[in-house]
């Protein structure tokens, strides 16, 4: 338990360091950091509508964060959440625009389409790794660009808004959207949608999968020690493909919540930043579903509040992105931070007598 506490502290310290760095930047740009942060968080939380928007942004981030975190727990680095999200969004959009269906059929179908689209997009680099030992980092990055151009071609040729406007897709109308009236009403007209429930359910499912099932046991053992899993007769290659498929599916769901929930169309030539934000969220959330949800909400609030801050104080909205970037840095250097905590902790604790030699630090097993 103690260990977990320490890790949580590390994450909080990363956040604090990010906010501190942001404050310094705001100072340098000649503004008041207190007013800046006040307005940043006010922008995300001041009205029920803004809270709704923050949550709507968080929804997508929860899913991309889960995608990266899940892959990470199974020993894989999924840089491809952006591409998987695009393909998921595209699958759902195409289904929505071309298949006429009543709403109660439409909604499950677009969700399923997104899930499958993302899953396929994740499975391909998984296969490449399992069969040809292609590093999944390279594989997923390549798939990002393939997705990027596929979406561009599709939007321009198959589903452009009109003959004249070919840079965005035909809009998703009310029937096909994940926004639902009662939710929109509660949050007085915000972008919030049922994607939030999808995200929370996904987090619970992933938690269950990782901790309670034989499949999770298998995937985690491959993630921790591939050679050990091999030794125990666990099919390592199958695990890799499966893990990437699930990770891709999660990012695909992020696509439907964003393009058919937060937005109502897809644009050409945009690689959604949520893919990379997912990496930061996963790191900050310590790779656990609950941690991912909390971090994603924090990121969502900052994303929703940054323009408000800028409008109120003339602080450039990029400051918010800078804060996020610094947090990523510190979360990524968590080991360094943990050493610092250990060091500070050791100084505070008096030198307790310690005995019993366990293992020689040098020699023994290499």
């Amino acid at each position, binding site marked *: 338990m103690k260990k977990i506490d320490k890790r949580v502290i590390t994450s909080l310290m990363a956040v604090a360091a990010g906010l501190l760095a942001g404050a310094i930047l705001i100072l340098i740009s000649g503004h008041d950091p207190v007013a800046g942060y006040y307005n940043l968080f006010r922008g995300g939380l001041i009205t029920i509508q803004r809270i709704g928007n923050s949550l709507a942004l968080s929804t997508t981030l929860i899913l991309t964060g889960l995608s990266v975190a899940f892959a990470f727990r199974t020993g894989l680095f999924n840089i491809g959440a952006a591409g998987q999200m695009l393909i998921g969004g595209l699958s759902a959009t195409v289904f929505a625009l071309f298949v006429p269906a009543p709403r109660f059929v439409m909604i499950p179908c677009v969700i399923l389409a997104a899930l499958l689209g993302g899953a396929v997009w994740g499975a391909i680099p998984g296969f490449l790794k399992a069969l040809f030992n292609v590093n999944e980092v390279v594989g997923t990055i390549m798939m990002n660009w393939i997705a990027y151009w596929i979406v561009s071609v599709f939007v321009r040729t198959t589903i452009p808004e009109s003959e004249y406007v070919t840079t965005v897709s035909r809009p998703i109308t009310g029937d096909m959207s994940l926004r639902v009236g009662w939710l929109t009403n509660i949050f007085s007209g915000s972008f919030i949608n049922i994607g939030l429930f999808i995200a929370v359910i996904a987090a619970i499912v992933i938690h269950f999968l990782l901790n309670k099932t*034989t499949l999770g046991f298998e995937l985690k053992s491959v993630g921790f020690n591939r050679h050990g899993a091999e030794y125990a007769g666990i099919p390592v290659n199958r695990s890799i493909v499966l893990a990437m498929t699930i990770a891709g599916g999660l990012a695909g769901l992020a696509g439907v919540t964003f393009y058919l929930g937060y937005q109502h169309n897809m644009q050409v030539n945009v690689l959604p930043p949520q893919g990379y934000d997912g990496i930061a969220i996963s790191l900050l959330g310590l790779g656990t579903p609950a941690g991912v949800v909390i971090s994603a909400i924090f990121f969502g609030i900052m994303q929703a509040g940054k323009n408000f801050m800028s409008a109120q104080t003339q602080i450039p909205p990029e400051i918010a992105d800078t804060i996020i970037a610094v947090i990523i840095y510190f979360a990524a250097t968590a080991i360094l931070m943990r050493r610092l905590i250990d060091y500070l902790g050791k100084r505070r604790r008096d030198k307790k007598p310690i005995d019993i030699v366990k293992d020689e630090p040098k*020699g023994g097993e290499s």
Partner: protein
Amino acid sequence: MITSNQQSPENIVEMRSIRKVFPGIVANDDITMELRKGEIHALLGENGAGKSTLMSILFGLYQPDAGEIVIRGKKERISGPNAANALGIGMVHQHFKLVHNFTTTENIILGMESPFLDVKNAAKRVKEFSEMYGLNVDPHAKIEDISVGMQQRVEILKMLYRNAEVLIFDEPTAVLTPQETAELMKIMRTLIEQGKSIVLITHKLKEIKAVADRCTVIRRGKYIGTVNVESVTEETMAEMMVGRQISLKVDKEAREPGETVLSVKNLSVLNARKTLAVSDFSLDVHKGEIIGLAGVDGNGQTELVEALTGLRNVQNGSVFLNGKDITDDKTGKRIKSGMAHIPEDRQRRGLILDFTLEDNLVIERYRDEPFAKRGLLQRDAIRQNAEQIIENFDVRAGEGAKSIVRSMSGGNQQKAIVGREMELHPQLLLAVQPTRGLDVGSIEYIHKRLVQIRDAGYAVLLVSLELDEIMSLSDKIAVISHGKLVGLLDVDKTDENEIGLMMTGIGKGETA
């Protein structure tokens, strides 16, 4: 250069009340050791007792937290290996630090070459040194072409070339055949005659008896005592090392082997560099017998075992388990067919270090009833299984079944693996270096268990680099050299010398 004042002049090195603390452990606690000029001083202790730490302090790799080091009567602070070299202290590490595509001479002068290399001259000096100490090293041979024993001599030459007076040998015989070991002892004696002093780090009592003058024993970081080797028995030293009486003999009754369990036929296996590691290897293992596979490290044992367990592809030949061809079966299927495996590298292969102990103990069976039902893990059953193994195999872990395996000691990790593999109730157990790096107590325990497995009618293939272990446990000994089976011997009809010779590739009846 003896500039002694009050302390006895015959001590070339004195380490007094040395204390070294690492986070969480006291590696050295008030240890005193005196090395007389011209003696071979053994440093005896179990793995993890603090021997290497103490010598690393002398060699300047660590700084002591307390205590002092006196060299030739003068108090010194040794800031690093270069400072140690300057004081005439040299170390032969357990894992040699040699550049493989360099010649012996190039390796010896590495790091001390002047701007203009004079390899010719250096080679001449290397040759002189080599002759003076009877090392027989060819100054122009490439490291990759010479034997392990010869590489070790290059390491020794490296120290002599730097005018070392005090030579520290860290477990020098771990990688040697019995013949090479005997050679090394001869070299050590020559070195002493030439006025050098030697510290020999080891846990092998036989070697101490054979070559050392005095022996300092440490246990769990504490100084136990220094004895004259001549005046004590191996048993006494063992007791000092472990802290209780132990039996060095394995009790084993003769048994008639039963039917064939494992049958290896003309097996050839490639290694990672795509060269033949095992070639045309055939061997049968029967019920109720332990076959020991003896060989020098790196002669195909690893590849053979990986091929048997399905972790490595077979190039040629076949493997039968209980008469069934399993050559193309995956690892999981082989485990289900009754194969258990104590792997060579317990941390890389045998365990998921970041999993809990209880999860590790079902790593091969997590899908089977009662550990899983309809894809869900059954925590109670998993816990019960762990508690049973913990009790039966005396596995000690801080938080019991819930302990993270990484936090457990090597001995307990190994006991956990042994317990887990036995709990599979296998037809065949492949035990690869089952006691590597363990303390004497754990070794004794695991040996007893292996004999029990055999008596219960299992077939055991024991692969070990420790010839003593093979000799005392096996019913028959198979010798492997360069991936080939050199011979299969009855343990009663052979001795260490014959096996040692065969390990170098010379078959029975042939002459060197």
